[in-house]
């Protein structure tokens, strides 16, 4: 294990070549994940978060142009040779994709699907050893090892999601990237799956990057959160504080979208954000969030605001932070969880 961060993304740009011209999906993103840390990436559809996830393992589609660096344990995934990349995929890092419920093969038993990466990475693995490992993995995600003999249609959504997590863990990865791992699940099953994930990070010291549009889930589970809008990072900082006292107006809107049950201010007052995110080929000039921003002013229009530090731990990209009606930078209470 080297001293380098487990994952260090620096100035990453991903542009898709399309019939309508270049489509910039990720525009200069920095992100770091340490061992034993869960980092959340928040943002709505089209903000570039899933492109970011697939680029980590160089799984981006062939029409994408990538620049910047993605250092996995100090080595650049974007330039490494094919053999090395293959070792990193699954064995070093693995991804639980969004909509994973539909990516299980319906005609194979789940035990066989979980053992597939084991057998690919270690062709000499005996059947018995592989069966035993599958049993361990199922147990780790809270499923009965007998379930190895089931077919996907015999499992509920939460159980399938756990199978996907078991597959991602099969080769003992150091980094797990989970793209919306609980979006289609009920609250209770969501809580079960999140418990499995956080236990993994705590007990095995893996690093995790978790992508979601639900800031409340991220605030609960993550150490730090990165908020993305239109392909850029608009805010980064300790998870709890981003949720409780967001600096950027976009983070504030995401935070308010999930009300605290029991908060009188949210009764009969659902909070939303009008409009849609900009089309990547028609980005507005200046701050890309300005057209939807409740606080937009003249000063937002000339240039896209840079990500600026506020205190030691936080940064945000908004020129109006600290102005009179801005959200307070001073912590209301000293708690940072």
């Amino acid at each position, binding site marked *: 294990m080297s001293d380098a961060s487990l994952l260090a993304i620096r100035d990453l740009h991903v542009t898709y070549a399309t019939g309508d011209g270049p489509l910039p999906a990720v525009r200069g993103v920095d992100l770091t994940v340490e061992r034993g840390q869960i980092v959340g990436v928040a943002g709505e559809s089209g903000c570039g978060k899933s492109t970011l996830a697939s680029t980590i393992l160089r799984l981006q589609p062939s029409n994408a142009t990538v620049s910047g660096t993605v250092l996995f344990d100090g080595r650049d995934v974007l330039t490494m040779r094919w053999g090395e990349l293959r070792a990193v995929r699954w064995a070093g890092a693995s991804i639980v994709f969004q909509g994973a419920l539909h990516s299980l093969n319906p005609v194979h038993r789940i035990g066989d699907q979980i053992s597939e990466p084991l057998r690919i990475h270690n062709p000499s693995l005996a059947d018995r050893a592989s069966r035993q490992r599958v049993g361990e993995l199922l147990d780790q995600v809270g499923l009965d090892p007998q379930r190895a003999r089931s077919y996907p249609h015999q499992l509920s959504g939460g159980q399938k999601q756990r199978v996907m997590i078991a597959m991602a863990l099969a080769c003992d990865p150091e980094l797990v990237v989970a793209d919306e791992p609980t979006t289609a699940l009920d*609250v209770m099953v969501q809580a079960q799956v999140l418990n499995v994930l956080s236990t993994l990070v705590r007990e095995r010291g893996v690093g995790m990057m978790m992508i979601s549009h639900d800031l*409340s889930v991220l605030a*609960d589970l993550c150490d730090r959160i990165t908020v993305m809008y239109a392909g850029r990072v608009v805010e980064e900082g300790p998870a709890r504080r981003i949720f409780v006292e967001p600096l950027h107006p976009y983070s504030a809107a995401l935070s308010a979208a999930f009300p605290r049950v029991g908060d009188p201010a949210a009764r009969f007052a659902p909070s939303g954000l009008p409009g849609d995110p900009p089309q990547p080929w028609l980005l507005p000039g200046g701050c890309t969030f300005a057209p939807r921003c409740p606080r937009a002013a003249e000063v937002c229009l000339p240039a896209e605001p840079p990500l600026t530090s506020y205190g030691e731990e936080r940064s945000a990209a908004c020129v109006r932070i600290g102005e009179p009606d801005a959200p307070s930078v001073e912590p209301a209470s000293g708690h940072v969880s």
Partner: protein
Amino acid sequence: MTAELSAHGLRVEFTTRTGRVARALDGVDLRVRSGEVVALVGESGSGKTTLARALIGLARPVAGEVRWNGSRLDRSARALKALRRQVQLVLQDPSGALNPRQTVYESVAEGLRVHRLVSGSDKTEAELVAAALASAGLRPPESLFLRYPHELSGGQRQRVLIAGALAVQPQLLIADEPVSSLDASIRGEILALLLRLREELGLGVLVVTHDLGLAWNIADRIAVMYLGRVVESGPTEEVLTAPQHPYTQALLSVVPEIEELEPVVLRGEIPDPTRIPAGCRFHPRCPALASGEAEEVAESCRTVPLSVLSGEPDGHRSACHLVSAREGAVPASSTETEEVAP
């Protein structure tokens, strides 16, 4: 005029391939009136979608009845068609519910044509479609007439579905997970739309969801379902700030943003409805029983079935032996429950 849709002792069963009978609804009383928002919450498999379907006659009850404005719903084609004009269903997943080959105009006009509403109106079809789109917050409506679903954002699609329901001027909407597939930023917009429709048109809304935050946002009353029964019901403030039933307490404790509650993560999932547990149907997963907190009533929990909770919209009720035992011990309690030990 106040419209009222209600379920009385409603039971719906399905037969599985192996011949076992699944009791998807096992006796449910519920009432929804125009002008109120009622949330029906529970996990997948609790029967909440079956109840929504049974209320508009899409699932045939084996016992109990559905009443529309007090009279029993008869299942003739004519009666069902009339009911479905008054009570519109808005499905979850707007991407799947819209026909990809139909324009927005066609999708919204379909209901008008089915119910022959244009001839009885002094407006043209296009005016009625435009009015429905505008009430669903899509402006200017004409600009969307010729769009196809794939050209719309998720939030716009959900609004088109709602517009399709509004076009026939219903008195009640039944919305099944109206925002679960939408982005966080759009979620609030759609919920605000439902509240605005209640204000402006006096619509009643039954919203089916597993999201307690949504219920807190918009619902006047809440009914919590577990395995085919309503296990707790009452005004939203009371149920969500002082939940009585251990199941409701557990559901609330796992809502991510409530820090002060120790999360009670129930093991497993709702049992198979072909094998409903004896006694209280929640007892195999009940944290109060497992922790010994319910020791005094444990025997009843395992063997004595609970009665169906009344659907009358007054008071805060729950179907739990422990709650009734405690309320029996503290007669000063103001809440009325209809617990019956058989």
